[in-house]
């Protein structure tokens, strides 16, 4: 069970703070796979990363992250180290390059585990079982990353990241570099990992909502550093309340077709820049239904069980 309260993280730049994430409050239940969607630069990666790996130029401003009842010291790189991997783990966007090119994979895992005071040999049987599960030969352990194909690397990273059965797994854009068939396999694996209890909760960060339709239990939509809407997947697709979510869904060409462009062309205008964002609802300028009230920041309210939205029109 992940509880995020009022989490605010800025980027420190030479020109001032970029308000990349503001007042994020939501929960992810045990066993829940939550999709985190939005345009590039909306703060979804910031949100994902700040839970596990908050480092400069990211700046912790305020808020709490509680995992299984225990507060994560996300503002402290050193203290946070203990929680990483065991409790929170990450499948990074750059999974293709995530493995040290000059170490054999088995050796790298061994060194990683030993650096966390764990015994590689004890974990090895389980590691092999999981390699079987993702249909990787055990020989992978004796290989260098360069000897693996992209898909193999991706699966290896998934196995490595979930090896210690973390409570929370953050999967960051894991499908963007893969072809459609591999994409599907990877997604199914994520579900399987959850089903087998390797991970409790999962956050999948993606700009590709169609992926989420297949595997996510719920979807959280972000816009310009703020949460717009969170609801079970079905609700989001059938009954989205935030105009932005509606436009996002509406802009999808067809469910299941891979969407390549980073920016959604269907929505006119572009998100405000976050260095000095305008007050009120940040979607206001692009919103077809904006009205006077929108100059105030809309709260992120639960309008029906499990359905949260931040829009004056939706309450």
């Amino acid at each position, binding site marked *: 069970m992940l509880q995020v309260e009022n989490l605010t993280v800025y980027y*420190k*730049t*030479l020109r001032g703070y970029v308000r990349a994430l503001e007042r994020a409050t939501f929960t992810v239940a045990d066993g829940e796979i939550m999709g985190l969607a939005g345009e590039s630069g909306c703060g979804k990666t910031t949100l994902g990363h700040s839970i596990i790996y908050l480092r*400069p*130029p990211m700046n912790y401003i305020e808020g709490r992250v509680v995992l299984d009842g225990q507060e994560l010291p996300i503002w402290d790189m050193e203290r946070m180290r203990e929680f990483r991997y065991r409790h929170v783990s990450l499948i990074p966007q750059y999974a293709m390059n995530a493995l040290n090119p000059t170490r054999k994979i088995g050796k790298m895992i061994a060194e990683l585990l030993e650096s966390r005071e764990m015994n590689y040999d004890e974990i090895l049987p389980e590691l092999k079982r999981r390699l079987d599960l993702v249909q990787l030969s055990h020989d992978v352990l004796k290989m260098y990353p360069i000897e693996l194909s992209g898909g193999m690397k991706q699966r290896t990273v998934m196995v490595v990241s979930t090896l210690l059965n973390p409570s929370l797994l953050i999967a960051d854009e894991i499908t963007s570099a893969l072809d459609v068939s591999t994409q599907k396999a990877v997604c199914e694996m994520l579900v399987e990992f959850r089903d087998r209890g390797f991970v409790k909760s999962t956050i999948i960060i993606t700009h590709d909502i169609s992926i989420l339709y297949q595997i996510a239990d719920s979807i959280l939509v972000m816009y310009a550093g703020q949460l717009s809407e969170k609801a079970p997947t079905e609700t989001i697709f059938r009954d989205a309340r935030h105009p932005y979510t509606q436009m996002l869904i509406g802009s999808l060409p067809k469910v299941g077709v891979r969407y390549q462009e980073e920016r959604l062309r269907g929505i006119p205008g572009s998100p405000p820049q976050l260095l000095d964002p305008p007050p009120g609802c940040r979607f206001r300028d692009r919103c077809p239904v904006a009205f006077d009230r929108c100059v105030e920041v809309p709260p992120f309210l639960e309008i029906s069980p499990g359905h949260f939205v931040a829009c004056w029109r939706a309450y």
Partner: protein
Amino acid sequence: MGLKRSEFLFFAWRNRKLRIGVSIVIFFVILAIVGPFLTKYPPNEYVEAAAFPPSKEHWFGTTIFGQDVFSQFVHGLKATFVVGLIGGTIGTFLGILIGFTAGYRGGMVDEVLNMVTNIVLIIPTLAVLIIIAAYLTVRGILTESVLIGLTAWPWAARAIRAQTFSLRVRDYVDLARMSGVGSMKIIFGEIAPNMMSYLLLVYILQFGGAVLNAAALDFIGLGPTNTISLGLMMNYALLWAALPLGIWWWFVPPGLAITAIVGALYVTNVGLDEVFNPKLREM
């Protein structure tokens, strides 16, 4: 890498390394230009008693023959910048030409050029320079600069080749190629602009390398035979026993200037790298 000009200037000014490096270089450039007017002594004229330590009259003292060291110094500075400018330009130009061609054309052209580059890279530059320089009985700053430029390109060619290679396979270049844009247009329209910052860094390193190479050549006695340079000053100082006689003001300034200029160029290089490469930017 696609920094806008205003943005570039903004970050450039904010970067301390860049500020320091550029200031030092500019200082010496000004000294090289203005210096000759600050001294009333021609560089090789006997103006005063021998081996005077620095004084009000002779800021850097005099040589064992009674030549004004400051005057030689500022004239030598000028030569240093000429060598850096010409040698650096030729070296960079050849590097770009060969590196671009190899990286962009690929295939056999690349294979052959790469092999040539590797061969030239292995043969020690100085050994070749020594031979060429010994061959020329009359040598001037210009010849020297050209020689240095002609032998300094291989590493630049290799680096540029690698860069071009990575840019060549980018989507937008593919797109341009598919839509039938000519090679030259792609190189100068698509690839070159994306490499400008990189080329600037290469140029700075070539400049510094040329200055150091020239100093070494001059010092060994293969430099210009008809003018003064910083390397020659050190050469003369050694030949004329400035060490045992303790005439330190003869050999300290020229070396110091070279070190300062080249060092400042390197620091500028790092600063620029930080400006161009946001990952390295200081926050």
